[in-house]
């Protein structure tokens, strides 16, 4: 009885296994049939001839075709005397490699990397594969990234020059707001960035509800985008000026005119704030794994600069808010006046000026 049960179990297990095998090979068989239809190679063998995973034909070897690979690449350094077919993968015919028949990639590409295909090269790729390939092609090289960075820095410098010349009072107002309370500017800037899209949405909905205003929606969207970009740029330049003045605002700067010192500060600050990006490009060449860390740091620096600047721009009402200057701080104070009560005023003694009272707002 026990033997009977074991035999039945074995039979069931065998049936289950064979069923699983049949299920596993069915998609592959379908794919192979598609390959036959695509290539016109009607005499391709069945799934038993398919290699699953990447396969390499070494240099100096000759393999009788067809060679069929599924779910991996076929690297041909040697000689395939017949057709090469890859299902869901690429065919690479490397230097010295030869395919004497057709080279077919279903769900992949055929790349001639110095090799030769005597027959037809045929491939079928889906839109997602094409998009991935396009994205791959779009990835910038390190040199291109360096060139883009240089272009961005030059553009920022140009904008800095124009802004300093054309709108220095505005830049002054935003910078002073930053000096007053950087943390508050950062917070307001962050909230402002969060509100950018909702405000535009509300404005558009409002225009649509008026029906007549629907025509204005595209104009408003473009104008809003330009205005937002302008405010963000102005904020960044104000932060750059602050950084530049902080680093090199000593004796040399005092010898310059106000606008000259401001321009110099903007230039220096812009270069300083974009330096982390240059480091990111440079670090990647010697330490690719650490590149993302530097990119993260550079992104953080840029974000803080732009956000705080944006907040200061909003708080200063684009530099139009009057700057509150401490009268006490600007008045000349006799160093010993506190110690010399005068009979004229009849005051027994004055308070000694302290740092908090002199520099208070």
């Amino acid at each position: 009885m026990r033997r009977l049960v074991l035999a039945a179990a074995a039979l069931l297990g065998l049936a289950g296994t064979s069923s699983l095998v049949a299920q596993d090979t069915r998609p592959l068989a379908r794919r192979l049939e598609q390959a036959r239809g695509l290539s016109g190679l009607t005499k391709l063998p069945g799934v038993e001839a398919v290699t699953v995973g990447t396969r390499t034909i070494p240099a100096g070897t000759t393999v009788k075709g067809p060679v069929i690979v599924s779910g991996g690449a076929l690297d041909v350094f040697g000689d395939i005397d017949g057709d090469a077919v890859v299902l869901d993968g690429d065919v690479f015919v490397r230097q010295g490699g030869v395919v004497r028949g057709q080279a077919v990639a279903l769900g992949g590409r055929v790349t001639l990397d110095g090799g030769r295909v005597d027959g037809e090269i045929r491939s079928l790729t889906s839109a997602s594969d094409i998009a991935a390939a396009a994205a791959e092609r779009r990835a910038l090289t390190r040199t291109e990234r360096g060139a883009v960075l240089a272009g961005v820095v030059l553009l920022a410098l140009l904008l800095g020059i124009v802004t300093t010349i054309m709108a220095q009072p505005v830049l002054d107002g935003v910078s002073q707001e930053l000096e007053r309370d950087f943390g508050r500017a950062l917070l307001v800037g962050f909230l402002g960035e969060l509100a950018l899209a909702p405000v535009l949405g509300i404005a558009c909905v409002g225009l649509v509800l008026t029906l007549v205003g629907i025509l204005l929606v595209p104009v408003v969207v473009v104008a809003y985008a330009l205005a937002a970009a302008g405010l963000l740029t102005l904020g960044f330049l104000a932060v750059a000026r602050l950084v530049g003045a902080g680093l090199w605002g000593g004796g040399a700067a005092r010898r310059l005119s106000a606008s000259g010192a401001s321009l110099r500060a903007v230039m220096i600050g812009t270069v300083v704030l974009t330096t982390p990006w240059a480091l990111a490009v440079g670090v990647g060449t010697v330490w690719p794994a650490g590149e993302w860390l530097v990119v993260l740091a550079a992104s953080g620096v840029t974000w803080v600069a732009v956000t705080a600047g944006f907040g200061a721009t909003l708080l200063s009402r684009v530099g139009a808010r009057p700057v509150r200057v401490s009268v006490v701080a600007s008045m000349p104070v006799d160093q010993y006046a506190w110690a010399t009560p005068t009979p004229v005023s009849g005051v027994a003694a004055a308070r000694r000026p302290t740092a908090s009272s002199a520099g208070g707002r």
Partner: protein
Amino acid sequence: VSRSQRPALVRCAALPLAAFALATNAARAQDWQRLDAARPLAPAHRDGQTLHVRVSYGAGTLRLAPARDGQLYDVQLRYDATRVDPRVEWREASRTLRVETRLDGVRFGRLESGDLTLGLAREVPLDLDVQVGAVEAQLDLTGLQVRSLDFTSGASDATVRMDTAAAVPLTRLALQVGAGRLRVEGLGHARVRRVEATGGMGELVLDFAGAWREDVDVDLALAIGSARLVVPADVGVRVEASARWLNQLELPGFVERDGARVSANWDSAARKLTVDLSSVLGRLVVERP
């Protein structure tokens, strides 16, 4: 918003949403694929035998031009696999390349069209048979050895051009235009002796600019379409038209002679173009650039 305005507002909001839903549904229903097929130019292909190319393309954009060096042909086809069944076949024995797209079923609504780019070897004599439906087609035959061209167009906007003198004479040029527009440029370069052109309701423009080597005969059959022939000023032109009272002929500077209209330089011209027009309600214009 008053109560009476609310239903209208709801409809206003619902309509774009419904349109968006339909559009996204249509977009999801598509499956875009790309088929590439290229064959290297083997020494055996340079034996002077003609490469026969048969193209049948329904809707989309078609570009035909010389292939990259070392390629006999190079086909790139982007299509929606849910509605198009493509076929690219090569028969070595007859040296025939067949590129076809068949519409699979009928779909309504505006769907994005695909595109077909076909490159052909400069080194091989060609026999081209191109049939297009509603296609925007550009056939650049400059540098190709075209011996024969049959071009049939349904409702397409097509341009065929030759910018330099052909290496081999074009022994057959047959053009059929249904309701679209076909412009052939640089026919003077083609070394063609006879042009057969049929126009239904469409517009046909034949520009004979180029390096003329021999006289040309044009067999022109028009239903209710129009044909415009642009002929270099030094070429003599003769137009023989049947049922002339029903046609509209614009032949500035032409004179009546022996039942035909001839240009003023007909007797003195070194090269001559003869047009045999059979038309119902067609319009023929001969322009001198």
